[in-house]
């Protein structure tokens, strides 16, 4: 039987804690292509530049009981806040799609959007920017 990954196996670990009720996560990585085309060339040429990565995730605003913390609260509070940001607002994150498969990195939560509509559970959409190199890539 083949092995595949689905949403069921997805995990988001933020600042050392597994976030419950994550509905989706996505990560994009890129390498800048610096143009080196000279005047006598007939086709464009490039050399690799610097890397970048960013991503997004969506978390249900859900808690198991009145006393339990809201899922994703740790993420939301990094953007919806009354205090000023500081250099400490860089957090470790792991996006796993199997127990031993995923990507680890440090990031800054850059966007958070709360949404609520009739007939649906409240959800928050977050965007993050990876800072520095990826720490671990297990694909």
């Amino acid at each position, binding site marked *: 039987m083949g092995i595949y990954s689905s949403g069921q196996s997805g995990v988001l670990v933020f600042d050392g804690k597994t976030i419950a009720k994550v509905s989706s996560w996505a990560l994009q990585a890129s390498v800048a292509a*610096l143009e*080196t*085309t*000279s*005047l*006598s*060339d007939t086709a464009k040429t490039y050399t690799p*530049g610097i890397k970048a990565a960013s991503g997004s995730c969506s978390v249900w605003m859900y808690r198991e009981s009145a006393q339990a913390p809201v899922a994703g609260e740790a993420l939301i509070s990094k953007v919806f806040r009354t205090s000023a940001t500081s250099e400490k607002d860089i957090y470790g994150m792991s996006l796993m799609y199997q127990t031993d498969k995923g990507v680890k990195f440090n990031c800054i939560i850059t966007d958070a959007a709360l949404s609520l509509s009739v007939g649906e559970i409240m959800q928050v959409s977050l965007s993050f920017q990876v800072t520095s190199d990826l720490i671990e890539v297990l694909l």
Partner: protein
Amino acid sequence: MAAVAFPNFKPSKRSYKAGSYPQRQFKALNGATTTLRYGNRRTESTLALGFENLRDAQIAQILEHYEAVAVSGDWVKFGTGNGLAGAGVELHPFLNETTSGLRWRYADAPSVESIAPGISSVNVNFVGNLDAGGSSDGNTSERPDEGFYFA
């Protein structure tokens, strides 16, 4: 003094201005103009070369070339492997100023912009001038080299 070849890097952009003839224009009160032309050879042509995303080692070669030419008073010549790259042969006499007798020298210091680790871009500007003591017939081979003086 002698012509020194520019390092063999092909520019990603080039801009050339042919220069003008030394002249002075007088305007009378009635608006009529009289032009006195002092020479039959154009001068102060300009050539700007841009090199995008070169390795820093290549940028260093250009800077070393600048230092060598600026200190010695030499002038710069180009070939198809550098400043003339991509230009039609009809333009070569102008871009290299071979028939005009002008000599390319750095108009100012090269400006280097760092892009990424180990990668930079550089812009170099040249000005073409007649060296003093040159013959009036445009034959550069008869021209002595006393046009460049050291303090």
